[in-house]
């Protein structure tokens, strides 16, 4: 196979030219920002790689309007630093999957805002503030027809025309190449506390998480770490107990946080031992969970990494799911109050990385999605990474792909065969 050419447009017009050339020559392109998530999705077979690192920079930031516009290749870290300097943040707490997926990607420099949007990432605050999809207000992109188009705007309340921002978010670069995105930003909470409950088993923990989210205490993070996972946490109070940890985060104005943290402990905790993390430790714990820290530095094998699955399911199904999968305590943890299950399966146990088994158990439960997030290229080329779709939905998905990228030049096959 010929060497891959890197194409690095410096202007939106050059980006458009690059797509036009790919269309004219029918040469597919892999689309990357900094390439930290190249290992997410099916491996793309493409002769060219379109790199957006030179389309970088914040072009509009109005803190009192809660809005920021940046070129797609702008490093997430640059945006987060700018927001932090103004007491704001991206409330959806985007994960940095680079450590999980293996290092710094193609070019270093960490994730870009375009990549975060293309993969619809979200962190623990998903339960309260939503995912990237809920924060993208508008964008400019180049579709697979080599045309620059835009949708949305710079205001939160906008129902003018179809919400194509949602279509772009999570489309993994298969419909259009993002050139610029506009996102909603929010005030950074003044104070944070995390209530820790020790020693619950999984079912009791899911019950505690469910009860916590039924209180009016506005819980903004709700996770369960079985004992062997908790033991690896970067926070002494979590790691040191030798027991499982159920963690509940509250954020907001100082007096409110103090009140809600103690009310939560009282509501959820009777009969169990409870502790609290303050700002610094709390931030460290939730960052580690957002970035899938428990499975990033693989504890099981230095040379043969675990296969990592991500399951989005109704929380009440978690105990049945874990029973069905017979998962060891060292190999899973829960976020999103149980709605997000991270699994690390041993690579040697099953040739398909557990795909058939995971999907069979999920099908038996009748709800949810399973995504193969980390696996060797060969495995991700061989089994469906994303949940296979019902025929009518698959056909509709294909019609949308074909209408935005008729020549099939943008990340072909990244999501599904041909899409």
């Amino acid at each position, binding site marked *: 196979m010929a060497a891959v050419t890197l194409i690095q447009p410096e202007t939106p017009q050059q980006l458009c030219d690059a797509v036009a050339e790919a*269309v004219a020559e029918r040469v597919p392109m892999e689309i990357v920002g900094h390439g930290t998530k190249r290992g997410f999705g099916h491996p793309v077979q493409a002769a060219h790689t379109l790199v957006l690192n030179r389309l970088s920079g914040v072009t509009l930031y109005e803190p*009192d309007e809660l809005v920021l516009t940046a070129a797609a290749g702008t490093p997430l870290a640059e945006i987060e630093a700018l927001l932090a300097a103004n*007491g704001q943040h991206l409330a959806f707490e985007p994960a940095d999957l680079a450590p999980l997926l293996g290092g710094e990607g193609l070019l270093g420099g960490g994730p870009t805002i375009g990549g975060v949007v293309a993969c619809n990432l979200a962190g623990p605050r998903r339960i309260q503030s939503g995912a990237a999809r809920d924060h993208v207000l508008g964008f400019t992109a180049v579709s697979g027809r080599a045309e620059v188009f835009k949708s949305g705007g710079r205001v939160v309340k906008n129902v003018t025309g179809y919400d194509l921002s949602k279509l772009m978010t999570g489309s993994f670069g298969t419909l259009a190449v993002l050139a610029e995105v506009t996102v909603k930003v929010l*005030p950074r909470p003044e104070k944070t506390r995390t209530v820790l409950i020790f020693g619950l088993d999984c079912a009791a923990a899911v019950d505690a998480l469910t009860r916590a989210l039924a209180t009016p205490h506005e819980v903004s993070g709700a996770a369960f770490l079985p004992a062997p996972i908790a033991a690896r946490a970067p926070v002494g109070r979590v790691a040191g107990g030798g027991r499982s940890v159920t963690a509940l985060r509250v954020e907001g104005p100082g007096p409110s946080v103090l009140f809600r943290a103690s009310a939560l402990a009282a509501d959820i905790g009777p009969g169990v031992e409870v502790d609290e993390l303050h700002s610094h430790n709390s931030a460290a714990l939730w960052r580690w969970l957002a970035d899938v820290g428990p499975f990033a530095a693989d504890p099981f094998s230095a040379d043969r990494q675990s296969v990592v699955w991500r399951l989005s399911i*109704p*929380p009440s199904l978690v105990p049945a799911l874990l029973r069905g999968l017979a998962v060891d305590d060292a190999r899973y943890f829960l976020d999103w109050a149980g709605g997000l299950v991270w699994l690390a399966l041993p690579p040697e146990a099953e040739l398909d990385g557990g795909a058939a088994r995971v999907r069979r158990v999920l099908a038996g439960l009748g709800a949810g999605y399973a995504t193969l997030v980390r696996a060797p290229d060969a495995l991700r080329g061989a089994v469906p990474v994303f949940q296979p779709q019902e025929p009518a*939905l698959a056909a509709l998905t294909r019609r949308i792909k074909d209408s935005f990228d*008729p020549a099939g030049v943008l990340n072909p096959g990244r999501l599904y065969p041909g899409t």
Partner: protein
Amino acid sequence: MRMPVPDAHIISRRREIATALRRILPPESVIADEDERRVYESDGLTAYRQIPLIVVLPRTTAEVSAVLRYCDAEGVKIVPRGAGTSLSGGALPLADAITLGMGKLNRVLEVDYANRCAVVQPGVTNLGITRAVEAEGFYYAPDPSSQIACTIGGNVAENSGGVHCLKYGLTTNNVLGVELVLMNGDVIRLGGKQLDSEGYDLLGVVTGSEGLLGVITEVTVRILPRPANLKAMMLGFPSSEAAGNCVARVIGAGIIPAGMEMMDQLAIQAAEAFVKVGYPLDVAALLIVELDGPMVEIDHLMERLTEIAAASGATSCRISASEEERLGFWAGRKAAFPAVGRISPDYYCMDGTIPRRTLPLVLRKMTELSLHYGLRVANVFHAGDGNLHPLILYDANQPGELDKAEAFGSDILRLCVEVGGVLTGEHGVGVEKRDLMGTMFNDIDLDHQMRVKCAFDPQHLLNPGKVFPELRRCAELGRMHIHHGALPFPDLPRF
């Protein structure tokens, strides 16, 4: 307003089509009699009326699917309809289209407290969802002012907002899944009870698609625990500028209230005359700010808000001391539309969104336009998220006044777009703002939107004449012009 030319052939087949539909559905679900059809002739945008070809009232997903499959095969158009409260003509019938009324699909199918969601049929009202879950301390957050009547199916189709979306988001942020019937009769599920669903976010695309992509037959919504306490503050300002400045300072201070609403002088006076809740009549602008949460948080933030208000030049400040008083603050705001209806024979409600900081400029220009057109305008404003509702006062019995009101409205919306805002914040494009789409989008932008439409409904049979100024044939939109050449763009940086 020019609507697509009705298909005379389809109209001539009315009886035959009704007979065919009565074979698919129980006969009483098919309305062909003119007097009964007339009931459906308009929605909340009453300036436009059209008696539909036939009205069909299905009871199940299977019936919806059967009707759509028949219409797809026969080339018959469909206009879906919830409660008909659209303010943009989204459910305006067409002479050659079947109006598909979803009112009989009105059951709450499941409340799942463990997973904090409810599964309902599209004809359940917005408030009906809250009623179904409030005994357990939950509610459904989006609260459009028509929430007693409007249905969740219509809310999803229009991506409805409300007073509290500043903190809790729009419909799109509160819907987890839908069952959707495509025009070809296929039934698909998008999303579900889980938070993240992979693949293209077609749930997000369908939300706010104004009935052009499919017919929603089931909705799964997120429900939230009711806040422990609520308190509201009412602030009077000597100018709209000062009130707008106060809003910016509140947000700048990192406070996101549950709701933050503004009314101008004419709206205040009309509301006070109507509901008599003690609004100050000597102020140019009124702000209502609502906080929710634990009392300790509310008290803490009320203190900060009081300081910000004083620094912004507020001339009056009241904090609700009881639930009754809080509801009183809201009573005038929530009755603002009917209140304005009392001081004018007719009014035309607009719905632009603007960057908050441009409010003084927009209000100033609106005053100029008001003088130019000789029509009064009252303003209510979701100040927290920049969504402006100018109410243009006119008299439809005066020849030419409706046209003048519409021209005034169009000028206001163009102004919203000029200052960086959008044509519609929560009411939808419908027929009302259809022909203004070009002020926000160029042809390439609109073509990309229309390609989504083509993927769902290639014959343009669902709700035609809405949203898009001009419907282009899908085959034409599908073509791509390919340029040939060895290396067409030699200047591209490549390595």
